[in-house]
């Protein structure tokens, strides 16, 4: 626990010193195991103009287990569960692919990268992924409508 806190503090300082584009972070408590995240939809993406709130939860045995990232703002996306949890489960967020040398920053940048380009081959919402692959126009229409409705 103490070990985790030290590392988390270090990472927080690093991110603060060199804030990534389109991402803001705000630890909720003093112990820093939960962070409020805000990601703005990248300009060139269909999520442009939206601001998405996310919750980052760090496990007590961090960094040996990956952080948990979930969308608090509803989003129409093949890699985010379409429920009240807004969970994500892909790439380095999976415990078999996570390495302790991975950083929170990489996780956040991956999340923003997914707004740029969803990954339909590792989807949690298979029907949205199907639509993304086969009927992109319809996908974009719904996604944009949701941005307007939920992410403004």
């Amino acid at each position, binding site marked *: 626990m103490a070990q985790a806190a*030290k590392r988390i503090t270090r990472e927080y300082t690093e991110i603060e010193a060199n804030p990534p584009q389109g991402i803001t972070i705000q630890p909720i408590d003093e112990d820093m195991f939960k962070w409020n995240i805000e990601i703005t939809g990248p300009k060139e993406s269909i999520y442009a103009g939206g601001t998405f709130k996310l919750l980052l939860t760090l496990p007590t*045995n961090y960094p*040996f287990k990956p952080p948990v990232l979930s969308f608090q703002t509803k989003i129409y996306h093949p890699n985010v569960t379409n429920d009240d949890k807004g969970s994500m489960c892909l790439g*380095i967020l999976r415990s078999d692919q996570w390495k*302790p*040398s991975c950083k929170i920053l990489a996780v956040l940048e991956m999340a923003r990268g997914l707004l740029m380009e969803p990954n339909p081959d590792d989807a949690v919402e298979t029907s949205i992924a199907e639509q993304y692959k086969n009927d992109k126009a319809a996908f974009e229409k719904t996604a944009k409508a949701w941005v307007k409705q939920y992410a403004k």
Partner: protein
Amino acid sequence: MSSDDEFMSDQLSDDQYEDDDYSLGELEEDDDRYLDDVKDEKPSKKAYEVDYKVHSDEQIRAAQQIQIEEVSSILGLPGEQCAILLRFFKWQKDRLIEKYMDTPDEVLEDAGLGPGYEAPAVLEKLKGFSCEICCDDERGLETYAMKCGHRYCADCYRQYIESKIKDEGEASRIECPSEGCSRIVGSKTIDLLVPSEINHRYRELLNRTYVDDKPNLRWCPAPNCEYVVDCAIRPTQLHSIVPTVQCSCSHQFCFGCGYADHLPCPCLLVKKWLKKCEDDSETANWISANTKECPKCVSTIEKNGGCNHMTCRKCKHEFCWVCMGPWQEHGTSWYNCNRFEEKSGSEARDQQAKSRASLERYLHYYNRYDNHDHSAKLDKDLYVKTEKKMTTLQSSSGLSWIEVQYLEAASKVLQQCRQTLKWTYAFAFYLERNNLTYIFEDNQKDLEMAVETLSSLFEMPTDQLANAKKEMMDRTAYVNSRRIILLEDTAKVLAEENWKFTVDLKQ
């Protein structure tokens, strides 16, 4: 009498066969004629039986060691590296050797054994070191790195490996903790870093991946059983054979799918059937009682109001609930159906009847399947009671322990036959109607009747049981012979691929 013999011989285990061979050898010297007789009676393998061996944990470890040493002597590499290579190649020894001969450096690199792997694993203390994982930079911190040079403090390294082994059950593919580095953490590193009980678990997991990687091996699925069954049957053969094996722990299961003994039903049908039952059985009963299908799109509809004017939610077809005919033909006779004789209505009812018939058909097989499943569970209780009965019988009738063993034998046969009967119903559900099916159903009926008769003998009061010994033994032998006949016949037709199923067995 002949059925009795069959029963007895079936009870013999493989070991006992071997003993038979041995005693045959002795007999040979005395009397050749007698030997021939014995030979004739010696049972040959039945159509539903497969060849298999049971290995213990130690044997599996030893088998790995032999292969590791063999590869080690061929490739001229240390054992530990050969172990990693073999695991990387999923124990396909020949492929490994061939690949290694062609491109040794590539093979080593891919398996995470890049250059300089051989150096011994040691902890080091470095000046000005800061661990990237825990951000600790105390002086005198012990650190560790494999040859890839990604160095972390020993505590973090250890914790990383431990969590991989303990939480994820990973062993042969633990990578360096550094993002993007796929060098495998070998057993030298494990020996150096982790405590012995976790090291033990690591070895166990390695052992397990060996069994998982080898298509001819399968763990016995019984709880706490550590035996491995070795059988040559491949998944591609499962449409023509049901490879049932018995572990040394006495658990009988299917080598093809790992499910408990499901003779005579092939794996694919078992899978389909279980899925169907999981989805359908309860629902099917309710649907059968409470709903009708839309005459146009066959969607199932529950009537939830008083009006007979139904509109299907799905296809918008409007029809009358009572006569099932289209609603527009009803003209002005709202809420009152007087058109029962009309053709369109009767066609719709035919359609309805067909759909109902298929549901009823399913329920017919399901209820019988479920009944035997349930009875088999009751038979387990019966077995416990039998043991008590055996004790009482010994004291009340003065019979010896060995003389009351027939009760236990009967109880075992009963349970096994119930198990078989249960699966005959799943099997029959997928059969098309033809002569073979009729023969199968006759066999099924004979076995079922025999089982029920034997089962009823068990209901007898204990004081009469002793007198029924002869009858019980005869019945047991008969039941068992019925089971063998059914399994034998079914397996033969299956091997010839002559059963006509309503589903494709080769998908």
